[in-house]
């Protein structure tokens, strides 16, 4: 297989990035989705719109604003510097942060839908059966929202694997740190190494296909047993 060390590193790095992003997003996205599903506050619509922004913004726009704000002159960059953490551009941490923004709606929206589908009923039943809100979340909401969680996790993972524009803007193409598969393919094309580009790109297509097959296969299986 004509994959260089850089290529293999890129694949590993991409998988690391996607996994970490998925886990973090599930943790961050769940309370946001819960709030959006339950609240009656006027803030619901603007927050929902902000969460959905990465769906419509070109990734390079997200990347550009991250570049500026994470830099030493930007809001976020100044915050991290004052905490002694330096700046996050050109680092894996920066990519994780970028990916979290980039894939946020792909986690929050399926979760929000799942929570809304549960409705008030089961939660009220749980309350009348002595379950406090924390308890009813783990014993009722989570099990009933399981399909939503699975969808959210798969989407976040696959979406982050395919991330390009954001990484391009803030990555700096550092092997082993920010050189992910999508950027590496771009590099190969740029330097006219088409064979290697094919290998990597083909691999990504196969991978995405398998993921989607699993996602859709799983879904229709669930529908059948209902």
């Amino acid at each position, binding site marked *: 297989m004509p994959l260089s060390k850089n290529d293999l590193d890129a694949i590993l790095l991409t998988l690391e990035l996607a996994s970490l992003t998925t886990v973090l997003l599930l943790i961050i996205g769940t309370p946001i989705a819960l709030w959006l599903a339950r609240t009656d506050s006027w803030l619901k619509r603007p927050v929902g719109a902000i969460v959905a922004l990465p769906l419509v913004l070109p990734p390079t726009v997200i990347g550009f604003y991250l570049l500026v704000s994470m830099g030493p002159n930007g809001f976020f960059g100044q915050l991290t510097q004052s905490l002694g953490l330096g700046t996050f551009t050109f680092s894996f941490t920066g990519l994780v942060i970028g990916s979290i923004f980039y894939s946020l709606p792909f986690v929050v929206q399926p979760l929000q839908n799942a929570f809304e589908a549960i409705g008030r009923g089961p939660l009220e039943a749980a309350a009348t*059966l002595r*379950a406090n809100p924390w308890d009813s979340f783990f014993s009722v909401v989570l099990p009933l929202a399981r399909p939503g969680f699975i969808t959210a996790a798969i989407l976040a993972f696959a979406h982050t694997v395919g991330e390009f524009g954001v990484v391009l803007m803030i990555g700096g193409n550092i092997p082993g740190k920010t050189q992910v598969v999508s950027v590496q393919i771009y590099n190969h094309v740029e330097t006219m190494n088409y064979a290697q580009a094919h290998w990597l790109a083909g691999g990504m297509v196969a991978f995405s296909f398998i993921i989607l097959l699993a996602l859709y296969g799983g879904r229709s299986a669930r529908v059948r047993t*209902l």
Partner: protein
Amino acid sequence: MFGFRKVKAPVVSDDGRIRARFVLQHADFRLDVNLDLPARGVSALFGHSGSGKTSCLRCFAGLERPQQGYLQVAGELWQDSQRGFFLPAHQRAIGYVFQDANLFPHLSVRGNLQYGQKRIPAAQRRVALDQALELLGIGHLLERMPAALSGGERQRVGIARALVTSPRLLLMDEPLASLDLKRKQEVLPYLQRLHEELDIPVLYVSHAPDEVARLADHLVLLDDGQVRASGPLKETLLRADLPFASDEGAEAVIDGEVCGHAAAYELLELRLPGSEARLRLPHAALPDGHPVRVKIKARDVSLSLQRAEGSSLLNLLPATVESWQALDAQMLLTLRLGEQRLLARITRYSFDQLGIHAGQALWAQIKSVSLLAP
């Protein structure tokens, strides 16, 4: 805020009453009730849809938070908005039966039943799982999933689930409303047994007069978010100033005991307390002494000064006139029948013709009797 802190319900004097005051304001509806109910037996919240019965019940449960609220249940204070005290739903010792059972779809029947039971300390478990299973006849359904149950079965599981938490107050929101007639007949007896065998006070919301008449001891009439009447069942039903009377539906509820059965004619004979009279109605045999509750519509009762001979009427009972009320172009009379009361609806003409006066002894001719229970 998240209901973590275990709030201790302050104890007030236990006078065996449930006192509630709720003012709940929604966009286009206002609930404003003041209730004093017995902490025993079944209290029915009756009214047509939109009258606020469910909202009221939810306030009892703590599922709604009224702007003003006071709730005291047999010596425990659950809510007092003036003192800023509110016991959240999950800390109230209630059992709630929803209109559509509301079982957890991801748990089996057993899982559903044990859900609440697990969450009360062993010391407080007074209703055993077995008892609830037997009471509701659902022992054979334990391993099934809710989706595989019929409507009636689901409702019975829902009731059992609420019971198993050994609540101090059982709240039922039109539990039979979503069932067809057959299922209703199936579940009603179980509710009756609940009433008879457990000592838990029940608040029962319904818009079906027959259910209420059959099960309730205390009746609260709600209309447009306000209490129009609250009192013991039979007395309240008799009141002529209530909607009952005017929509052709004025009726009296009579309790009796079986004292005989004429097999050849399929006629059941009932003894009425405080009266020599016997009430007869077509029914299969029942054991002697078995309690029976019937209702008799006012318009099915006509009056006669003498005992009519050779009449096809099944029931001719001696009664005394107690009071009367003018109702449109007719008169609604309240008669004493032994220890109980009967309603009769006659024309003004007849009223004058018969020379009706208080204490008058006459004969009530009852055209038809409807069985409520069993």
